[in-house]
């Protein structure tokens, strides 16, 4: 083990001589010591977590597999996921509990699914992707990447104390954010630290030194918020630190072609187009070691076909059940469109090969929704999916029934396998300390 180095000492050292190549020992002192970042040297590639949130659920009787356990057959609305069946777990039967609070339709379910509880004012619990990002996302340039597939800016990813991660609705903007001028190709032979980045790093140190003064000045309630600010600032500092080091080579990293498409996904055609662009970008970003956590908000309550008077959400309440089919025809078109979009997303991650596997192989995606059956706003028998084993941490290809249990059992399981130190998760009736042991490898 080398002698511990103070961050600023190194920086000052570097400032002395600009434009020199920085030697590798840097990594030893800056990165954590469990070595996963050195994937290209033969170790296992690091695990990736992704969330996919799709509002408006499925139709009862059309999504749940008929049999339990392994070798289930996909029901009609999940048919399109057949190519991934062996890598998907279907969890059925769970509930969102309101504990006497009013049901805010299309909101309460999202909150319980992501935070494990209904927020009391803005004093809300963090969403599970952020606790996972704290566990696995600290050593990449981006702690997490939030995408709004159907436009809008608010993501479902939020930290304690009312800090909501902004979402990116534009593929072009996300391209620039990840692969723009500040991107360091991990496989380039030469590495010269950018003097601008060095200077920025030094300036940010000046701000972090204000921390103590600020914390002393504000009251307790505001202290938590400013603490969050300084954590975020620290994240920028870490990003810059990362840019000042020669990145560990990532054998499979390829820089994607520049994306010019900037329009958000406001109708089905745009969603379909942007989904492909975003999926491709994420696959490249993961393979190039830029992030290990992503949050896709399919959302799209207002999604319409071009020229369609009524959107998906309105249709769930206004379209009569087709007497022959036994379900709402147009709504079902949207459900199948959404599942097809998800399948397309998975296909893109799976097509990106890394060594003997694919990006999808080391990823675990959690798929959740707001209501079991949107037409009547049901909060039980929720469809929940996990896709991928996350580097073998989950067993896959199973249909698990947990009738009447809180949905949070899935969230707890996922957080635990991702290394979040939690014994229980959720609040009141949504609290659970029972992970789904059936699917833990």
């Amino acid at each position, binding site marked *: 083990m080398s002698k511990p180095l103070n961050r600023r000492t190194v920086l000052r050292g570097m400032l002395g001589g600009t434009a020199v190549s920085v030697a590798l020992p840097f990594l030893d002192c800056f990165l954590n010591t469990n070595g996963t970042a050195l994937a290209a040297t033969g170790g296992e590639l690091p695990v990736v977590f992704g969330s996919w949130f799709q509002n408006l659920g499925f139709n009862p009787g059309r999504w749940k597999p008929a049999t339990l356990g392994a070798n289930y057959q996909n029901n009609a609305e999940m048919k399109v996921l057949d190519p991934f069946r062996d890598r998907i777990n279907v969890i059925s039967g769970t509930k969102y509990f309101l504990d006497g609070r009013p049901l805010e*339709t299309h909101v309460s379910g999202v909150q319980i699914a992501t935070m494990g509880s209904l927020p009391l004012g803005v004093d809300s619990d963090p969403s599970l992707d952020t606790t996972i990002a704290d566990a696995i996302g600290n050593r990449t340039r981006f702690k997490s990447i939030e995408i709004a597939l159907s*436009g809008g800016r608010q993501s479902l990813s939020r930290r304690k104390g009312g*800090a909501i991660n902004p979402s990116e609705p534009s593929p072009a903007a996300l391209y620039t954010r990840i692969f723009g001028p500040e991107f360091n190709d991990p496989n380039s032979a030469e590495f010269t630290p950018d003097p*601008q980045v*060095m200077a920025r790093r030094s300036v940010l140190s000046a701000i972090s030194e*204000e921390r103590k003064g*600020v914390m002393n000045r*504000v009251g307790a309630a505001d202290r938590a918020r400013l603490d969050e600010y300084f954590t975020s600032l620290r994240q*920028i500092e870490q990003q810059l630190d990362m840019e000042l080091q020669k990145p560990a080579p990532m054998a499979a990293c390829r820089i994607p072609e520049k994306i010019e498409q900037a329009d958000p996904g406001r109708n089905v055609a745009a969603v379909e187009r942007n989904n492909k662009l975003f999926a491709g970008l994420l696959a490249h970003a993961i393979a190039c070691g830029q992030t290990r956590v992503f949050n896709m908000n399919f959302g799209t309550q207002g999604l319409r076909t071009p020229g369609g008077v009524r959107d998906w959400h309105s249709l769930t309440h206004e379209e009569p059940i087709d007497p022959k089919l036994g379900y709402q025809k147009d709504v079902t078109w949207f459900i199948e469109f959404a599942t097809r979009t998800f399948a397309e997303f998975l296909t893109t991650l799976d097509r990106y090969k890394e060594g003997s596997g694919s990006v999808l192989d080391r990823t675990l995606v959690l798929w959740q929704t707001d209501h079991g059956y949107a037409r*009547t706003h049901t909060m039980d028998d929720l469809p929940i999916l996990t896709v991928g084993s996350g580097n073998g941490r989950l067993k896959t290809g199973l249909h698990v029934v947990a009738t009447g249990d809180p949905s949070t059992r899935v969230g707890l399981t996922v957080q635990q396998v991702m290394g979040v130190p939690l014994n229980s998760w959720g609040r009141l009736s949504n609290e659970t300390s029972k992970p789904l042991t059936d699917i833990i490898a």
Partner: protein
Amino acid sequence: MSGAMVGRKRLIGAGAVVVAATALTFFMTDSEDHKINSGPSVTRRLTAEQYRNIVQDVFGGDIDLGGRFEPDMRVDGLLAVGASQVSITAAGMEQYDAMGRAVASQVVDQNHRDMLVGCKPASPTAPDEKCAHEFLSKVGRLLYRRPLTDQQLNAYMTAASEAARITGDFYQGLGLSLAGMLSSPAFLFVEQIVEPDPENKRGFRLDSYSVASQLSFFLWNSAPDSMLLSAAAAGELQTRQGLERQVKRMMASPRLEEGVRAFFVDQLRFDEFEVLAKDAALFPKFSAQAAADAREQTMRTVLDVVLTRNADYREIFTTRKTFLTPELGSIYQVPIFKDGPNGSPDDWQPYEFAADDPRGGILTQVAFTALHSPAGRGSPTLRGKAVREIALCQTVPPPPADVSFTEFEDSTAHGAATARERLAAHATVPSCAGCHKIIDPIGFALENFDGAGEFRTVENGASIDPSGELDGITYGDAGGLGQAVYNNPAAVACVVDRMSARALGRLPIKDERKWLKSLKADFEKSGHRLPALMQEIALSDALYRVGPPKADPANRLPPTEEIVTTELLSGASS
């Protein structure tokens, strides 16, 4: 130098005060004779608009921000209240950081440096402490809204020097140091620093600079100008006379318009225009330009009533006077030409709707009707709910769970042509009827305006009946709705409550009810003149006296005129 030292001491002192205030909470709750009657201090994150205004005020209007902001959060009806509760995430920080650098690099670029930096370095390729000191202390005072402490100034000077050395460029170094300032907590968060209140033995008050910020963010939606900071430095803002002098000056400034605009953007939820989209196939006239113009049209209508004419606030719901562009003319079906005085073209033309025109008041304007409609059609329910929430500050309960929509679906299936026919299904389900009968009839009056706000008399071939009802007052059309809102006492209480919550950055506490009551009485006495209300709020102790920092939910005022659910239920069963 000595001024900065004083500033620093004061900061350290204030830290101790906060601790003392916390300790006192326990103490004082037991004491009968001392009543805590001031609310807590708040720390607000700058809103997107405030950030823009400050950059424009300090560096001029041609600086491009080139970035997106972390979304603001609306709490209790206002972004201004949400600002006291939000923090900054890592991804949000990334954006602030990029924006700060974009602004700073323009400030020091070839086009701006002579004017904005002022001094010249001895060498453009090396650090220059004197020039950096001059610039950073001058700009720092405006951005931090108080003089920088020696420690802060030294940190930024060191950063500028280091960065100049690394990049081999004085201006780049200075720019990066400035970018740091724009990412700092003291800039991004409006802190309130408290000190013991000499007039109230056991109470606290905002320090002079916090008073300055409280005033300027309320009245101008921006940081204090140099004059206000000087008044703070001289201690003038802690005297009644000094405060009055500054408030008078600020009320007379053209920047008051920014403050009034900010209030209405917030109150009318016009920030939601950012994500508003209409289907081009259904509403071909509703272009991005038309949407932007519609938003501005309503803002201009409101400003004309409350500022230019200083008329009764409630006229915003009835006025026939407005302003239109050629783009809007096509939606309103009136010809608008770009005529201006002396033949200069002006996009905005004053226009007055005729007395028998269905348009009158902001509720009938394109901005309101389009904003509260889904992308493909109109919605009496959404519009009715918006009138209750925005114009009357009433809370409409969320829809009940596990509702069967069968009735609703049937009416759609059996060829209901108009929204009124479709929504009649609401009346047949008791759990729906309660709420819908207080929102749908409001929206029916606006049914003559389609999903993009264009006038129509038929829907799906059937003629539209725009009659409706608000709290027992029935009317025949949209004009009647505007008049009913005008006459509704809740409209007055609403604007008083929201304006004071905006000034405070929080909901008023119970002990501030008396203050609200007198604000409302005076507002009525003034004939509902908004500037008079703002001036009275700006001069109120409530803005500057600080109680112990606590956020006990029991101490929060419930929303005014809240619709009581039990009432709804009894209504539903009758």
